[in-house]
């Protein structure tokens, strides 16, 4: 029992609720939202220390013994993701201060932003399947509001489709919950894992596992990503960045949780399918990224490639592969936010997202150019930046488990990613400058700070990978050894 575990859910929730009362006082809302996000990041750091020292931390709500009560569990995997979430949320929030606009601010932008973080944190911490559904919905309803807030034509058109897709996939999620409850009589992750291990994972359970793969794959944009490119190009920059950084990651987290803790008995079926879907995702995403001449499209297709790559690590199901996925997941959260912020700044400066109409920005914006260059290299996984280590470990993992094709596709798509993002860099920053300072549609004033911080983070995450190695190793260990999780949750009541 440890009450700190629930703090990352409570803090943003309460801060968001308080903010609703102060609709007109934007200064107060900004201050409180920064405070809340920093506080939840601080709690994540405390949790990481506690988990490292004393093992996985749990909270049984109301003191009800599992599996009867609601369980909140924090293992190292969740804690690492919580910390990255807080960091990215903080910088996107600072970016939003300058870019989101007065109208949106006074129409509850900050409360919904914090509710989104509540849902994301909740999904990372929850210890049972139904609460995962609830936290997903908290996150999704906030994201529906954020994507449509402002009510421009493209936002309305895309948010309708985004909501429709997610409502249907939520229904399928509940369908899976119902089948699982019928077969196993429980919804607690640890208890589910025990029951599956006792009863054996037969064909029916594997089918249900694949249903869950489909549902979470829809959220994570694993193969079923058809909704993503357009939905992510509709909202304002800060919102698109936080979506790209976090929303797909929650789906990825759920897939990792289900397929390392509960459905790990038939890897030759489930994990092979994950591998195939990951490979297809990478290929199709990379083709999309290479094909378009539109910044927004290129960036959104890069989100899809990242998802496929992380899944390749899970598909290999070796300690190297999973460790690589952990590294890459943390890197991906940071870098996707950074590259979306940079791309969005370019679009707001030039007023267009078509590559062929932009050129020579580096003359007036050298820092923006170099940051984009670093982010592009990091995205493609060039050493010593943060993407490299993850790529090495994932590729090693896939080779160890003899999925050579998967590792090969991963490396090939990395090249395509590098090409697509360098295409953006060269077109936007090189060449003739035909946009003088006075003709620019927007400004970078106040926007450089959050982007600079994220750039520094991606460099230091690459150079200082030793520093988080111990934490990543612990996360991998707890994922590959479900007994640790089960013992921490079920304790003496097994």
């Amino acid at each position, binding site marked *: 029992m440890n009450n700190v575990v629930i703090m990352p859910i409570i803090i943003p929730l309460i801060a968001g609720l308080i903010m609703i009362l102060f609709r007109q006082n934007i200064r107060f809302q900004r201050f409180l939202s920064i405070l809340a996000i920093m506080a939840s990041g601080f709690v994540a750091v405390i949790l990481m220390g506690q988990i490292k020292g004393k093992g996985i931390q749990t909270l049984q709500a109301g003191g009800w013994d599992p599996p009867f009560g609601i369980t909140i569990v924090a293992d190292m995997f969740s804690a690492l993701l919580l910390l990255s979430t807080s960091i990215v949320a903080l910088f996107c929030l600072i970016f939003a201060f300058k870019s989101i606009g007065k109208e949106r601010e006074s129409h509850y932008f900050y409360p919904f932003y914090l509710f989104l973080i509540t849902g994301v944190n909740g999904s990372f911490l929850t210890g049972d399947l139904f609460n995962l559904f609830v936290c997903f919905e908290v996150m999704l309803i906030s994201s529906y509001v954020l994507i449509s807030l402002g009510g421009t034509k493209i936002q*309305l*058109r895309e948010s309708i489709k985004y909501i429709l897709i997610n409502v249907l996939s939520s229904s399928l999620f509940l369908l899976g919950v119902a089948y699982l*409850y019928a077969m196993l009589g429980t919804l607690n992750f640890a208890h589910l894992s025990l029951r599956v291990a006792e009863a054996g994972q037969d064909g029916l359970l594997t089918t249900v596992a694949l249903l869950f793969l489909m549902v979470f794959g829809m959220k994570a944009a694993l193969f079923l990503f058809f909704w993503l490119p357009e939905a992510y190009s509709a909202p304002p920059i800060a919102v698109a960045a936080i979506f790209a950084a976090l929303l797909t990651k929650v789906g990825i987290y759920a897939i990792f949780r289900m397929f390392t803790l509960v459905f790990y008995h038939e890897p030759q079926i489930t994990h092979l399918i994950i591998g195939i879907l990951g490979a297809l995702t990478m290929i199709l995403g990379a083709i999309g990224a290479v094909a378009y001449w539109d910044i927004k499209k290129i960036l959104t297709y890069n989100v899809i490639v990242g998802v496929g790559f992380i899944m390749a690590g899970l598909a290999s199901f070796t300690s190297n592969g999973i460790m690589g996925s952990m590294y890459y997941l943390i890197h991906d959260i940071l870098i996707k936010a950074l590259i979306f912020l940079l791309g969005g700044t370019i679009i707001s400066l030039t007023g267009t997202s078509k590559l062929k109409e932009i050129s020579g920005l580096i003359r007036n914006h050298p820092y923006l150019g170099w940051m984009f260059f670093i982010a592009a290299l990091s995205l493609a996984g060039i050493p010593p930046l943060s993407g490299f280590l993850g790529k090495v470990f994932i590729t090693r993992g896939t080779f160890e488990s003899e999925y050579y094709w998967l590792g090969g596709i991963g490396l090939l798509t990395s090249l395509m990613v590098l090409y697509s993002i360098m295409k953006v860099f060269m077109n936007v920053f090189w060449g003739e400058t035909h946009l003088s300072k006075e003709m620019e549609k927007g400004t970078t004033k106040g926007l450089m700070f959050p982007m600079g911080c994220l750039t520094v983070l991606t460099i230091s995450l690459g150079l200082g990978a030793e520093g988080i190695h111990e934490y990543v190793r612990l996360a991998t260990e707890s994922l590959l050894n479900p007994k640790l999780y089960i013992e921490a949750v079920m304790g003496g009541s097994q």
Partner: protein
Amino acid sequence: METLMSILVGLFFSIGTYLVLSKSLIRIILGTSIISHGVNLLILTMGGLKKGGPPLLGGINTTFTDSLPQALILTAIVINFAVTALFLVLSYRTYKTLGTDDMDQLRGMKDE
């Protein structure tokens, strides 16, 4: 009883799917609503439709009903209620702003 419920759930799903596949936005929203009702009934059925008293200690009942599916459905209904309300409001706004509720005309191809 379980068989009857299963047939009912199947019926809900087929009606819902039919509506979701239509062109008009309002029919699509009604379709998602009907599908989620089908899911709720499915959760109820999956818990087993046993007859019995509430699961209280010291009661005189010897058979108990499982209360968990009902708790799950209650939560799911509330969430579905909120999402449907939001969806309806947003579709009304879309209709006012874009002047159409035909999904064919809402395809996002114009800006490419």
